[in-house]
């Protein structure tokens, strides 16, 4: 058990970081929406799922096969652009169709949560019944869409003694970190970012100061959705599969990551994402991979017992975000 852990330490670390990067990107969407609306946006997981299919569509349309090196980076960028746009658009649509009417009515957060669960079921089923058979010419193997052939040709680009990093994992990690830096700058430096922070802090005062709340909420959903889309493209690059139910578990994990870091806190989402990815991978090498989800959620419960508001424990409203 411990031997496995020691032998697997470096591979687990690399896997954990690349998985954690994806969690962190998805967690950003949860945390931003939560910061502004105090809403657990359950449908965010399915926004991510939509992104994986956008990435699949891109790869199929471009006819990519066994890409490597610079070509793979190019494919990743195109996939990220398409998936980011599609997911961002879907998130915006979701806000306008499902959440805005509730906000206007001053509904309770519980009602909004149920609406989010309903929207999540709707998007999943829309893809399972309609979109996938219509767009992708494939027999429904339980709704799972694996590629027939790998479109990524994997090779180790970093080789330092015990540390081997393959090209896809490196792209996932670097791509995710770039997006996080971009988002951090956007929220901290731009006028819209200031609007988001002020709305999170105090919506009433923000309105009095001339912030257009509806626009802030829309931008929050758009940016969060786009992040999920990029995460989906990276996920697809790494695992090469799309399924209408993919979003569910990944979504819960990403939300767990957001809470682990301190929900509403953008940097917390990053810390939480990486921490969760690492814990999961170390946990699988210690107890066997079938226990990884149990490890992940147990870590969450343990962390919250001692740090009831997450590792960093601040929220979007505080200046640090």
């Amino acid at each position: 058990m411990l031997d496995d852990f020691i032998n697997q330490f470096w591979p687990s670390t690399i896997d954990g970081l690349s998985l954690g990067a994806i969690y962190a990107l998805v967690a950003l969407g949860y945390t931003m929406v939560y910061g502004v609306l105090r809403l657990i946006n359950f449908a965010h997981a399915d926004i991510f799922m939509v992104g994986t299919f956008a990435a699949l569509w891109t790869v199929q349309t471009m006819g990519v096969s066994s890409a490597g090196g610079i070509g793979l980076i190019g494919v990743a960028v195109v996939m990220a652009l398409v998936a980011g746009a599609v997911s961002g658009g879907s998130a915006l649509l979701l806000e306008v169709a499902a959440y805005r009417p509730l906000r206007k009515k001053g509904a309770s957060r519980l009602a909004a949560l149920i609406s989010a669960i309903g929207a999540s079921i709707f998007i999943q089923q829309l893809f399972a019944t309609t979109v996938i058979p219509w767009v992708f010419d494939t027999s429904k193997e339980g709704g799972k869409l694996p590629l027939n052939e790998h479109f990524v040709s994997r090779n180790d680009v970093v080789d330092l003694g015990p540390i081997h990093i393959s090209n896809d994992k490196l792209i996932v990690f670097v791509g995710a970190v770039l997006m996080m830096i971009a988002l951090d700058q956007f929220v901290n430096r731009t006028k819209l970012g200031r609007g988001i922070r002020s709305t999170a802090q105090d919506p009433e005062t923000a309105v009095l100061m001339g912030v257009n709340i509806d626009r802030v909420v829309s931008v929050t959903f758009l940016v969060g959705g786009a992040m999920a889309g990029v995460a989906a493209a990276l996920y697809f690059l790494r695992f090469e599969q799309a399924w209408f139910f993919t979003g569910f578990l990944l979504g819960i994990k990403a939300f767990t990551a957001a809470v682990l870091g301190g929900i509403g806190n953008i940097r917390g989402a990053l810390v939480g994402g990486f921490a969760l990815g690492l814990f999961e991978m170390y946990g699988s090498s210690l107890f066997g991979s079938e226990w990884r989800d149990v490890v992940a959620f147990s870590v969450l419960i343990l962390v919250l017992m001692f740090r009831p508001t997450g590792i960093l424990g601040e929220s979007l409203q505080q200046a640090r975000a």
Partner: protein
Amino acid sequence: MDGRARLGALGVYVLLVLVALWLPNEAIGSFMAPSGTDWPTMLSDQIAIYVLLALGLNVVVGMAGLLDLGYVAFYAVGGYTIASFATKYGWSFWETLLLAILFSALAGVILGAPTLRLRGDYLAIVTLGFGEIVKKTANNSSYVNGPRGIQGIPHPPTLSEFEVFGVQPLKYALLDSRPYYYLLVFLIVLTIIFVKRLEHSRVGRAWASIREDEDAAELMGVPTFKFKLAAFAIGAAIGGSGGVVFAAKQTSINPENFVFLVSALILAGVVLGGSGNMPGVMLGAFVVAWLPERFRGLQDYRMLIFGAALVLMMIFRPEGLWPSRQRKAELAEGTGGMGSMGAEVAGPGAAGATAEVGK
């Protein structure tokens, strides 16, 4: 309440129970169930179970105001308790029912004790995680046969062979679902009486004060932690009893019976009906359990429509189909009892709510 009003209320309750007993009637079934589906089976396997579970979750969510997204865990504890004790040690249904209630209440305490100091959405995600832990553990443990689950769970022993209107309501067998339905009605009535008594006691008032403002409740001398734990344990016990009946009716269970969707649907039933108001909660659970089954003919599209229906119903009735008068008043004030969404400036009372959740 004077004597006559009390008698009137009692009459209404008796009438409702009679309606519930008469419900498995074929005439109703011909309209309520899609053709080719057995209406009593639908009632017992789906609707009555969901109503019972929703009543249990209502204690946690509606009365104490604690958001629990992993309620299915307690349902699973109940199901697995009867499955293991009945198949491995030959315990009877009634013995395991008591044991399962004890075990699931214990599970509620085990989950609640370390986590109930958390507030709002932190508690929500922890309970969600707990639900997944229970399911995954069942899936990975060879003691309960992992993903294959446990088969051959015995039916409850027959209590009596007596027959009324062509039903043997106390003879539990494979073919007739009605006895199980009556058993569930019995449990539901017990639960209603139990919870109703609690609601109008010191415990219920403590829950309401915790739901409305936990800090104020604590300052007024309500031992909030103790009462939150009690809400968790009672809700869990009710969920566990549902799991026992489910397992005995199905005679086999596996981890896939206890997925997150069940938690989500039961919560949807509670909120859709009118969180905190028991008749509303029962109506909500009925709708949530009945709608997807009724439109089984639409096959793959039924869940699609159901998802859209949830969104629409929340848009048109955010306070639920049948909210309590108190909850309605709260909504008019703009807080809705559990705090409103953040970026929301409509309504005169919104300021207090957003400031409160913004801490």
